[in-house]
C-alpha cells in the first residue's frame, strides 16, 4: 500500500521542483509554550494550507515568493505573517489566547473553515477551557459529561461516565490518555470520570471514522491530551469543591526547553458519612484520587521528549470489607524531525487496570480477590509532508496484552478457599498502517489501510464447547506459543468536496476490528467487569461504517452547521446469554452469543463559537439494533443504547466581563427495557414472564443544569485569580428513572407493583477555583 501511494504520487514528487521552499515548525501557546495541535495554516494567495499534527508540528511546501500566511486556532487570536520565501525556513509560531487578552475579540477564525476542508468526518475537538464552562455534577468539571452533549453520543445510565457512541457499547470506545489506553474511565462506580480537569489540555472524539493510525475498537476514539507544563513561568491552579479538592503546578525546569506538570485530586465524599446516624455507615471509607504528571524536554529543534503518567484509584472499605480499583498509565514519547517534511513520534506505553477486593484480614474467613489487565505498547508514527497536496501518515504499533482475569485466595485461618484462579491469557495486537491525504482542486481525498494482526499466546488453557455451549474438552498451550491468529484489513476512506469557501459535503467509509472486549452484561457496568480477548472460541468483532455529511459556516465563521448521516454494521457482535455468569467463570466463552448488530442515524449540530453568547444545539435521530441467535428467540431487538431522539442545548452567556452564565438541557427518548407481560407462581414466589427483550421504554429523560461562573476582581499587580462556580444539577428536580423494578407486595398477598428508582434530585454545589 505504501508503495502504491508513493508511486501514485510520483507525479507530485516530480512536479515538486516547482515547490522548492518548505516552511515548517511548531505552533505553541505564547503564555505557556503548550503545543497547539490542529492549528490551521492558510496561505491567502494560494488559497491552500495545512494543519499542525498532534504535536503542533506543521510543514508546508510552496513555490518561492511572497505570501501572507495565517495561523488560526479556536480560542486564539489569528496570526498573519507576511513572508518572502526564498529557501526552506523554520518558523515556530506562538499564538495569543483570546482570554488572556482580557478584551472582547471576534474570532474570525480559519479554524471553522478547517472542518469544511478536511476529509476526516465525525470528529469533534474540545478544549478544557470550554468544557469548564459547562454546568457540572457536584462541581466536578468532567470532559466525558461534556462529550455526552454532542450528537451521536449518549450516556449509558443516569450520571454514568459510560458512553454509547452511534449505538455501540461503552467497551467499543478506545479511550487514550497521552496515547495510553484507559480501560476504566470512571470513578465512584462511573459517576465521575478519571480525567482531572486541571491536568487535561484537550479531548478529541472520532465517531467511528478513525485515522488509520488507530484501531482496536468499533465505535470511537477518544483522545485525551494532558497539559505539557508551562515552559515559561511557574503557575498553579486548583479548586475546593463539594466532594473533592485539586491542585496543579506547572513550570519550567529549563526556560523554553523543559517543563513539568503535576496535578492531584482527592475526594472526601466519605466525610459526609460521618454525619450519618448509622454507626456502621460512619465507619465506611469511600474516596478516589488521581495523580497526573508530565515532563517534557526539548533537546533541540529536532528532538523533543515527553514523559507522562497517570495514577488513579478508588477505595471503598469498612471494618468488614474492602475494595479498590484503578488505572495506571505511563507514556514515553519522542518527537523527531528528520527534516522539514518528515516528522516521527515514537511511543513506549504501559497501561494497567486492576482491582482488589476482600474481607478484612483479621477475619478468620478472610479472602482476597484480584484481577488485572496490563498492556505494553510500542508505536512509531510518521507524518510525511510530501507536497502541499499530499500528506502521508504511516507507522506501526504493537501491544502486548496480559490478562489476569481473576484469582481468589483464602487469607484467613479458616478460609473457605485455598486458591481459585482463572487461567491467564496473553495476546499480541499488532498493526501497520498507511494513509494519504490528497488535495485535487476542490476535492480532498483520504485513503488509507490498516492491517491488524492478533495473536493469542501461551501459556493458556482454551476450553472447547459443543453446540449447546457445554464444555467438552480443553487444550493447554505452552509458554510463548502462538496458537491462534486473526488478522484484519481495515480500509479508511474519505472524500470532501468544497462547494464554496463556506460549505462542503463529505463521505467516508471505515472498517474497524475489535479483538479485546469487556464482559459487561449490565447497562452501566462496574469495575469488576473484566476484559477478555478474542480466541479460538471468540471471533473478533468487525464494524463497517459509511457516513455522509454536509458542513456549512456562516457569519464569518461565528456560526457553523453540520449534519451527518451514518449506517454501521457490526459483524460477530457479542452479547451474553440470558442469566449469564460473567464473574470468575472459567467457561466465560460459553456464556457468549454472537450475531449481527446495526445502527443508523442522522446527526445535526448548530454551533456558535464567538460573541457574548456561545454554545451549540445538537439533535440526533438514531437506532441501534441487534440480531443474535439464542437471544430474544433470534428476533431483532433494540440494544440497550437505542434511544431514537436525543436533543441537547448547551449555552454560555457572558453577562459581564467577569460573570458567565451557562446552561445545558438534555432530552432524549427513554431507555429501552424489558417489562413483564404476565406472571406465574413458583415456590410461593411470583415470577415475571417477560416481553421480548427491550420492547418497552422508560419515561423520556430530560434535565436542565445551570452554572454561574464568577471571576472575582483581581487587584493590580496581584497574580492570584479567584473564581467561584455555582452549579445546579437537575434544576427542575426531574425524577428520571434509573431503574424500574417489579416487586411482590410484602403487605398484600398476591399483589405486585412497579417501583422506580431515581438517583439525583436537584443538586446545588459551589466550587472555589484559584489560579496563580
Amino acid at each position: 500500500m505504501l508503495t502504491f501511494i508513493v508511486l501514485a504520487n510520483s507525479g507530485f514528487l516530480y512536479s515538486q521542483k516547482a515547490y522548492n521552499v518548505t516552511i515548517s515548525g511548531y505552533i505553541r501557546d505564547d503564555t505557556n509554550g503548550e503545543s497547539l495541535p490542529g492549528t490551521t495554516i492558510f496561505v491567502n494567495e494560494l488559497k491552500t494550507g495545512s494543519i499542525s499534527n498532534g504535536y503542533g508540528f506543521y510543514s508546508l511546501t510552496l513555490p518561492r515568493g511572497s505570501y501572507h500566511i495565517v495561523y488560526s486556532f479556536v480560542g486564539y487570536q489569528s496570526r498573519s505573517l507576511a513572508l518572502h520565501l526564498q529557501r526552506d525556513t523554520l518558523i515556530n509560531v506562538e499564538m495569543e489566547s483570546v482570554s488572556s487578552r482580557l478584551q472582547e475579540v471576534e474570532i474570525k477564525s480559519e479554524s471553522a473553515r478547517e472542518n469544511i476542508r478536511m476529509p476526516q468526518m465525525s470528529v469533534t475537538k474540545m478544549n478544557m477551557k470550554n468544557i469548564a464552562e459547562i454546568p457540572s455534577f457536584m462541581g466536578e468539571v468532567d470532559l466525558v459529561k461534556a462529550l455526552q452533549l454532542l450528537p451521536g453520543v449518549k450516556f449509558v445510565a443516569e450520571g454514568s461516565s459510560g458512553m454509547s457512541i452511534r449505538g455501540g457499547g461503552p467497551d467499543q470506545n478506545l479511550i487514550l490518555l497521552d496515547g495510553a489506553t484507559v480501560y476504566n474511565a470512571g470513578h465512584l462506580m462511573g459517576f465521575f470520570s478519571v480525567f482531572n480537569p486541571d491536568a487535561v489540555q484537550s479531548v478529541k472524539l472520532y465517531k467511528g471514522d478513525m485515522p488509520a493510525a488507530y484501531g482496536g475498537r468499533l465505535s470511537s476514539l477518544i483522545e485525551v491530551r494532558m497539559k505539557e507544563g508551562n515552559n515559561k513561568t511557574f503557575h498553579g491552579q486548583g479548586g475546593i469543591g463539594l466532594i473533592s479538592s485539586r491542585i496543579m503546578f506547572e513550570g519550567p525546569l529549563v526556560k523554553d526547553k523543559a517543563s513539568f506538570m503535576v496535578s492531584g485530586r482527592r475526594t472526601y465524599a466519605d466525610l459526609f458519612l460521618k454525619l450519618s446516624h448509622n454507626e456502621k455507615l460512619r465507619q465506611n471509607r469511600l474516596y478516589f484520587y488521581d495523580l497526573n504528571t508530565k515532563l517534557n524536554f526539548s533537546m533541540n529543534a529536532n528532538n523533543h521528549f515527553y514523559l507522562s503518567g497517570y495514577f488513579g484509584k478508588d477505595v471503598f472499605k469498612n471494618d468488614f470489607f474492602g475494595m479498590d480499583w484503578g488505572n495506571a498509565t505511563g507514556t514515553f514519547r519522542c518527537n523527531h524531525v528528520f527534516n522539514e517534511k518528515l516528522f516521527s513520534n515514537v511511543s513506549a506505553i504501559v497501561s494497567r487496570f486492576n482491582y482488589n477486593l476482600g474481607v478484612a484480614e483479621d477475619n478468620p474467613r478472610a479472602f482476597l480477590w484480584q484481577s488485572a489487565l496490563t498492556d505494553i505498547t510500542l508505536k512509531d508514527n510518521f507524518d510525511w509532508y510530501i507536497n502541499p497536496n499530499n500528506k502521508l501518515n504511516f507507522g506501526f504499533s504493537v501491544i502486548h496484552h496480559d490478562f489476569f482475569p481473576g484469582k481468589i485466595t483464602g487469607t484467613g485461618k479458616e478460609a473457605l478457599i485455598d486458591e481459585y484462579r482463572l487461567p491467564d491469557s496473553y495476546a499480541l495486537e499488532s498493526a501497520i498502517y498507511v494513509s494519504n491525504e490528497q488535495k485535487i482542486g476542490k476535492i480532498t481525498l483520504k485513503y488509507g489501510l490498516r492491517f491488524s494482526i492478533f495473536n493469542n499466546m501461551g501459556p493458556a488453557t482454551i476450553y472447547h464447547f459443543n453446540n449447546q455451549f457445554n464444555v467438552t474438552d480443553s487444550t493447554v498451550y505452552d509458554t510463548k506459543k502462538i496458537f491462534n491468529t486473526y488478522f484484519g484489513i481495515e480500509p479508511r476512506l474519505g472524500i470532501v468536496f468544497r462547494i464554496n469557501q463556506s460549505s462542503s459535503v463529505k463521505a467516508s467509509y471505515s472498517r474497524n476490528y475489535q479483538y479485546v472486549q469487556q464482559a459487561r452484561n449490565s447497562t452501566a457496568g462496574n469495575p469488576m467487569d473484566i476484559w477478555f480477548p478474542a480466541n479460538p472460541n471468540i471471533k473478533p468483532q468487525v464494524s463497517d461504517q459509511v457516513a455522509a455529511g454536509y458542513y456549512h459556516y456562516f457569519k464569518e465563521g461565528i456560526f457553523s452547521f453540520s449534519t451527518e448521516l451514518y449506517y454501521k454494521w457490526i459483524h460477530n457482535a457479542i452479547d451474553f446469554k440470558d442469566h449469564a455468569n460473567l464473574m470468575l467463570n472459567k467457561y466465560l466463552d460459553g456464556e457468549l452469543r454472537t450475531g449481527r448488530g446495526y445502527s443508523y442515524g442522522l446527526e445535526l449540530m448548530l454551533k456558535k463559537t464567538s460573541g457574548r453568547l456561545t454554545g451549540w444545539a445538537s439533535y440526533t435521530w438514531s437506532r441501534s439494533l441487534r440480531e443474535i441467535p439464542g437471544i430474544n428467540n433470534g428476533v431483532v431487538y433494540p440494544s440497550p443504547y437505542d434511544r431514537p431522539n436525543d436533543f441537547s442545548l448547551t449555552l454560555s452567556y457572558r453577562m459581564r466581563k467577569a460573570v458567565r452564565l451557562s446552561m445545558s438541557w438534555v432530552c432524549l427518548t427513554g431507555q429501552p427495557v424489558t417489562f413483564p407481560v404476565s406472571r406465574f407462581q413458583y415456590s410461593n414466589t411470583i415470577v415475571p414472564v417477560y416481553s421480548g427483550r427491550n420492547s418497552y421504554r422508560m419515561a423520556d429523560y430530560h434535565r436542565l443544569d445551570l452554572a454561574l461562573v464568577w471571576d472575582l476582581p483581581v487587584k493590580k499587580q496581584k497574580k492570584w485569580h479567584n473564581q467561584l462556580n455555582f452549579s445546579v444539577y437537575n434544576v427542575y428536580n426531574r425524577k428520571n428513572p434509573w431503574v424500574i423494578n417489579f416487586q411482590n407486595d410484602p403487605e398484600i398477598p398476591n399483589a405486585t407493583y412497579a417501583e422506580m428508582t431515581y438517583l439525583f434530585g436537584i443538586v446545588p454545589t459551589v466550587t472555589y477555583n484559584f489560579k496563580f
Partner: protein
Amino acid sequence: MIKLLRDIIFILLVATLTFSCTKRVEIPLNTGDVKLVVEGYLFGSDSVSWVRLTRTSSYFSNEPPPPVSHAQVVVSHKTQQWLFTESTTHPGVYFLLDRSFHLIVSDTFKLRIQLQNPVGNHSRYESQTVVPPLRIHIDSLNIEYAPDFKKWMVRYFGLDFPGKDFYLFNSRVNGKIVTDSILQKVVREDVFFDGRYVSGAVVQVLNEDVMKPGDNYTLMASNITKEYYDYLTALQDEVGEKNPLFSGPPANVEGNINKGALGFFTSFQTTSLQVELKEIYDRPKVCSGR
C-alpha cells in the same frame, strides 16, 4: 459469595451516596399468552411428592394463580408408573400417595400430564428428571446473630466430596419450613471448595423474627441437579431487585417442561440436622450442634 459481594458493594454504594429514592409508578403492561405452569417434586420416603399445576395470569392481576384441576398426573420409571391424586382442599395440587413409590439414585423419572382442557394450546405435557445422589452430610452447624444486619446466619460444617456438586439449603423452625420462597432458599455450587472440608460457610440468612431462643432449628441440605441449580439461580435473579450496575437484562427462566410450559420438575433427597436455639449472647456465636 459473588452475589453476596455484589449486593454488599451495591447496597453500601447507594447507601453512601444517599441520593437514590424510590417511588411506586403506574405502568400499563400488555398481557402475554396463557401458559401452563408446573411445579413438581419427587422426594424420598421421608416426604410426600407433589405437583402443582397452575396457569400464568396478567402481571398486575393481584389474584392467586389460577389452578388447573382434573388433570391426570403420572410419574413413571422404566415400566413402573404411579398416579398422582388431586388434593380436595388445594385445587391444582396433586400428591403421590402410593406408598410403593421410591426414588432410585441416578435413574430417570418421567412426568406425564394430561389436561382435561387445553392450556397454552396443548393438553399433554411431559418432563423428566434424574435423581442426584445425596453426597452431602452436615457434621455441625453454627448459628450467629448479626446485629448490624439483624439477621441470623447459619454456617455449615461438613466434607465436600470430590466432583461437581450443586446444593440446596432450606430451614425449618419448629417443624415448619421458613424458606419456602425463592429468595430465602440458598443454592451453592462447590466450584470454590470442591473436595475440601467446608468449615463454616454461610448457607442460610434468616430474618431475626423467624426464630427465638427455645425454638428448634433444622438445617436441610440436598444435592440437586445442575439444571435445577441453574433454574433456581435464574429465578433468584429475576425476582430480586435489579440495578444498572450489576444486573443483566431481564429474561424468562427456562424450565424443563415441554411445549413451552413454565416451571420445573425435579427430584432430590435431603439430609438434615436439628438443634435447639438456646440464648442470644452479645458474642456472635449462639448455638451449635452435632
